[in-house]
């Protein structure tokens, strides 16, 4: 297993510590996003936190390699961070600032970074899934070794576009991996009330995909399953990975989860991939508690900086609204005010 040159020789424990660090960074980032909202510094309240789901993002993200591309659902901060997203620019985007990844035009639900292969977060459930089929077509045609990965929630398991995409990926043997982060809830509806069957790996296999289901609390297991499926996808056997977890908080910031009882939430929050990994680090991998605390402290400092950066960053200029509809050298939309002035003979 390639741990990168700096961790050579550290093997499984180096990987475990890495995964822990990524998960801690994600959780701390999400906590600062929540704080950004409370301080009324976020752009709106449509912020979907992935707290409790860090195992999926970290495990799959770590198994991907440079050049692999991906799309995410609306709850995708964690995946992006796991793939190298810069917390400053992410937080700035979430705050609608010019320094954000998308200049403040995309926000939390449409964050993207072509340099890191992030083909975009999507606010339409399932909307970003077929793009990875297209990326797979490109990679095969252009003889590139990459895989494209679609991350989505359990809600997308009930969308038709997923099955069109699975069929095409399998039919054309594309380097594609479908990753369902199953946090049990599509907004307020539990999967038991949304899906006639939860044997989603069977659905995937019926299309000819390689499929696995793993417990998202066990991040190393997620990593191992994703690594195997990514290797297969690179050889033209597209895959499906279901990662089960529990969404610790509400759907978005305004949602207090009235549809879940306290006992369920308490039990769900015990399925904590970070706590579990910390225990394994201290036990099985014999990592000193102080080292883990250093990781936590570094994440806190990093995300505090990101939050401060986002708060202090300037808003975009109003004229920025009219750029990027089309390419810069192409005719742009005419502002309403200009059209009215022209009609009234003022210009």
């Amino acid at each position, binding site marked *: 297993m390639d741990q990168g040159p700096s961790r050579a020789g550290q093997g499984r424990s180096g990987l475990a510590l890495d995964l822990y660090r990524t998960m801690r960074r994600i959780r701390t980032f999400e906590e600062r996003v929540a704080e950004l909202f409370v301080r009324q510094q976020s752009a709106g309240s449509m912020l979907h936190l992935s707290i409790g789901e860090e195992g999926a993002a970290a495990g799959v993200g770590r198994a991907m390699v440079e050049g692999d591309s991906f799309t995410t659902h609306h709850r995708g901060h964690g995946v992006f961070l796991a793939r190298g997203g810069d917390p400053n620019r992410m937080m700035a985007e979430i705050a609608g600032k010019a320094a954000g990844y998308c200049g403040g035009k995309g926000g939390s639900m449409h964050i993207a970074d072509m340099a890191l292969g992030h083909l975009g977060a999507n606010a339409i459930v399932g909307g970003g899934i077929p793009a990875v*089929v297209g990326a797979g*077509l490109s990679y095969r045609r252009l003889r590139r070794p990459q895989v494209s990965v679609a991350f989505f929630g359990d809600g997308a398991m009930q969308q038709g576009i997923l099955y069109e*995409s699975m069929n095409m990926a399998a039919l054309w043997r594309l380097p594609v991996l479908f990753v369902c982060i199953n946090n049990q809830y599509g907004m307020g509806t539990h999967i038991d009330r949304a899906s006639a069957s939860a044997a989603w790996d069977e659905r995937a296999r019926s299309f000819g995909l390689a499929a696995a289901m793993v417990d998202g609390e066990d991040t190393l297991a997620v990593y191992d399953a994703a690594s195997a499926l990514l290797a297969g996808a690179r050889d033209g056997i597209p895959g499906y990975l279901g990662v089960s977890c529990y969404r610790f908080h509400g759907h978005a910031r305004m949602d207090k989860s009235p549809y879940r009882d306290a006992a369920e939430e308490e039990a769900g929050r015990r399925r904590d991939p970070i706590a579990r990994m910390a225990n394994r680090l201290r036990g099985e991998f014999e990592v000193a508690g102080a080292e883990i605390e250093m990781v936590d402290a570094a994440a806190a400092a990093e995300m505090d900086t990101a939050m401060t950066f986002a708060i202090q960053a300037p808003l975009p200029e109003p004229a920025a609204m009219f750029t990027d509809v089309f390419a810069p050298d192409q005719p742009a939309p005419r502002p309403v005010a200009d059209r009215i002035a022209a009609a009234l003979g003022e210009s």
Partner: protein
Amino acid sequence: METTYREALRQALDDAMTADSAITLLGEEVGRYGGAYGVTKGLLEKFGKERVIDAPISEAGIVGAAVGAAMTGLRPVAELMYVDFIGLAMDQVANQAAKIRYMFGGQIGVPMVLRAPCGTGRSGGAQHSQSLEAWILHMPGLRLAMPGTVSDAYHLLRAALRLPDPVVFIEHKALYVRKGELDTQRMDAPWGRAIMRRGGRDATIVAYSRMVHRALEAAEALAADGISAEVIDLRTLNPLDMETVSASVARTGRALVASEGHLTGGAAAEIAAQIQEACFDWLEEPILRLAAEDVPVPVSPALEAASVPTAESIARTVRRMVHR
């Protein structure tokens, strides 16, 4: 040389694919079958199955895959067998392709072309005969071409395949067999510019796609009555060249917009509103719209033909405007 609208489209794809190896066709029946209307015939044999991809009947998947391919190095041409099927793919068209450059702050564009035939004339009924350009026109981020002539079929498609943004390219199915002149080295006007197809003094008929021909027929009939009608072919609806249209209406003082889309909320309404804004001081008469009736397209030839503007209804309407 004289050729057909269908052959001009095929030639455009052939020449573009020869010039740009990133161009890849994706759609139902585009390969072995050669396209439901024969536009892609022979391209599979020439360019191979990696560049001419027969897709399952999955319109959303086809357009969505084209979006992803366009973001990762290919220049896909996705085909819908009928524009009526765009409803199945509308999220990928309107929420993905149209918005990706903007949502992502200009990081990347979606250089793809979505081809689809529209229009009445084959008794195809309510789900195979529509003209849905208004759905596209309404959406920022999409270019929209609707060629009416053989030359534009070729040149607008070639131009669309060089643009950095998504283009919806709507062909009229009744025009596929229409013959006309094509000089592959010479375009009637640049992409995005409307063109005067016939000069006139008394009224301006604004049209696009098949309605250009009906407008020209109407102008011919009107000339016999001593009425001189100018015909403007928009060619592209986004960009919409109102400069050419307004210059014409400012001279004639009368404007009729002819469209095969439904009247209410249609493309003709937008064009009429823009003429009104630009030409209010020059207008002699109300701006009128001739468009498809606000009914689903009926099958019976008697009903279908009567549901859309004809050369006769265009001529009759202009005559009434001029003689009012």
